[in-house]
């Protein structure tokens, strides 16, 4: 692929990388897996980039591809990760701005969300990103009613985990 396209893509991905990091944070539980999934998503985005015609915003397209990769295409790789490629300090959550009780709740919530299945995590991601039900349903290819039903179940599930 041509260097101009690659330059454009790298710039867009660098600017929008938080989208992918957030998805990796939901779907993985350690640094190596986070890096591995980030790498797979980046590869998929780059492969699909020539088909991205700018009908939607890059960020919208990127989170959809990222979720699809995490849900359908990703298989934990056995490849060794070259730690020199990406220097990350992940899962380092700053809690200073929260009081003790709230901090505890957030920790518990992150733990609870990790226990959800892949589809539920995708719904949680879109909810946290303030996507409406029309967009959630469209992204997953399900009906809006189904999206709402699933979301309500997730809320009940989380409530049970956090307040047993």
């Amino acid at each position: 692929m041509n260097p101009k396209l690659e330059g454009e893509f790298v710039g867009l991905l660098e600017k929008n990388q938080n989208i992918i990091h957030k998805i990796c944070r939901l779907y993985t539980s350690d640094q190596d897996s986070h890096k591995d999934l980030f790498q797979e998503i980046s590869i998929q985005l780059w492969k699909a980039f020539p088909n991205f015609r700018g009908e939607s915003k890059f960020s919208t397209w990127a989170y959809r591809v990222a979720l699809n990769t995490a849900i359908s295409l990703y298989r934990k790789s056995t490849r060794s990760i070259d730690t020199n490629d990406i220097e990350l300090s992940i899962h380092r959550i700053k809690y200073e701005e929260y009081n003790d009780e709230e901090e505890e709740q957030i920790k518990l919530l992150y733990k609870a969300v990790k226990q959800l299945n892949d589809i539920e995590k995708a719904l949680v991601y879109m909810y946290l990103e303030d996507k409406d039900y029309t967009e959630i349903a469209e992204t997953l290819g399900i009906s809006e009613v189904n999206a709402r039903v699933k979301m309500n179940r997730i809320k009940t599930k989380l409530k049970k985990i956090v307040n047993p």
Partner: protein
Amino acid sequence: MEELDLLKKHWKKEDDLPKISKDEIGVIIHKKSSSVVKWIFIISVIELLLGFVLLFFMNSDDKSMVLLMEKNSFLKFIDKFSYVLYVVVIYFIYRFYTMYRKISVGDNTTKLMENIIQTRKVVRHYMLFNVITFFLMCISVSWIVIQDRIYNEGFSQHHLSSIQFVILYAVMFFVIAVMTVIFWLIYKLIYGYFLRKLQKNYNELKNNEA
């Protein structure tokens, strides 16, 4: 406050997320993918080639077979039928190629999963077609060959009683059946490894769907 809304408060803060430079991204995107689709593609191509190998074995150039073919019109038919098989194989390859091209990571999740599952289905039907054809060919050709030996060379009178003859068939049938089962198990194992997660997620997604 609802649990998720509390989480949202923290979610919006992005200062604890890692930062990757443009140079690093430039390196990452040229690495090899380990996606399920890539592996399914590789395995499918091997299967398609395997079909060709089976076809090749079905087209025997063995002299005794050629002689036999001249005498037996059914064998002649089987020989001509193998050309039809090539057409079927080419059709399957075409179907596989068009289905594979349809897989787009930019589609909605359901459609992406359905396209992957459909692509697999094409190759599965192809393999099923090959195994059944191979099975039928083996049975019918060996039956004709044995019949020929019996009537032309007095094979059964000298060497085989009718019971032994039945046993011979039973053993042959058993060997082919065992081979098919082993083959099927390996198959299940390979695709279970690659597609279990996808199938589980697909069912979860379609759950409650009217």
